[in-house]
């Protein structure tokens, strides 16, 4: 069997149970530790996965029959793309908040500056829904984020992460 080195793909339908957030996070972490030697990078992929999955469980439209969201993680040549798709209610104001948060991050010269600004915002406005998870993905996960509506009733959030060269044994 011939294999292309350092290309990988995870594609899972996942039930919207909160306990699955940490199950996926730790599973993804274990998978990537098995591929790469860079534990810090694996932690970052797992963290980004966890934050995106948390948002899907929290803000997805779960009144219909389908209680699943979809997690896809693809990688090749030192880059990893984490995608989470979940059903949404197009009228849910969280959609606009998500888009606004992504635009807000882009206004800063760096993800670190955006993250520090978000921490100060949280401190000054306790109790507000913050969007910190997305900003954390950009900063701590070194990821570029985008979101798109699919067929008007599903949301796909994508985090593109660029990493280390593949480990050599």
């Amino acid at each position, binding site marked *: 069997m011939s294999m292309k080195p350092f290309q990988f793909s995870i594609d899972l339908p996942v039930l919207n149970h909160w306990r699955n957030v940490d199950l996926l996070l730790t599973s993804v972490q274990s998978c990537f530790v098995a591929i790469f030697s860079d534990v810090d990078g694996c932690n970052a992929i797992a963290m980004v996965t966890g934050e995106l999955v948390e948002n899907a469980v929290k803000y997805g439209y779960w009144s219909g029959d389908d209680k699943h969201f979809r997690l896809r993680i693809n990688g090749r040549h030192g880059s990893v793309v984490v995608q989470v798709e979940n059903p949404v209610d197009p009228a849910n104001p969280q959609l606009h908040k998500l888009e606004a948060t992504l635009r807000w991050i882009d206004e800063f010269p760096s993800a670190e500056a955006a*993250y520090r600004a978000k921490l100060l915002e949280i401190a000054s406005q306790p109790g507000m829904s913050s969007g910190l998870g997305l900003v954390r993905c950009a900063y701590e996960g070194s990821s570029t984020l985008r979101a798109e509506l699919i067929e008007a009733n599903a949301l796909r959030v994508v985090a593109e992460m660029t990493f280390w060269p593949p480990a050599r044994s």
Partner: protein
Amino acid sequence: MDNFVAGDLTLAFNAARTDAIELTWLGRSNDRNPDKLLNPYWQITLAEAAQRTLPIELHFQKLQHFNSSTITVIIQFIQEARRRAARLVVVYDQAIKWQKLSFDAMRVFVTDELFQLRSV
């Protein structure tokens, strides 16, 4: 004071320390609403610190993971401690990249002697 235990998270109280209220975070902080779990314990911690006139030390070096909701709770605790004039020290492991990134950013809250960040 007792330890705090909820789900995968433990905050271990070090009763041997007489110079600080030392709480060591262990495990994983992955609850959906960590504020509801932790806020009652924060109140006990702040009351104990005030009664014994001691600083509070939060040690994160052994924590495996926290979610962004937990970061929000920590920020609110920093603010609440400052409001009550309680001294607060946060200790983290700078050799662990996620800890270094998360806690270095919290230097925005180091504005006076009441709050310190210490890396080991």
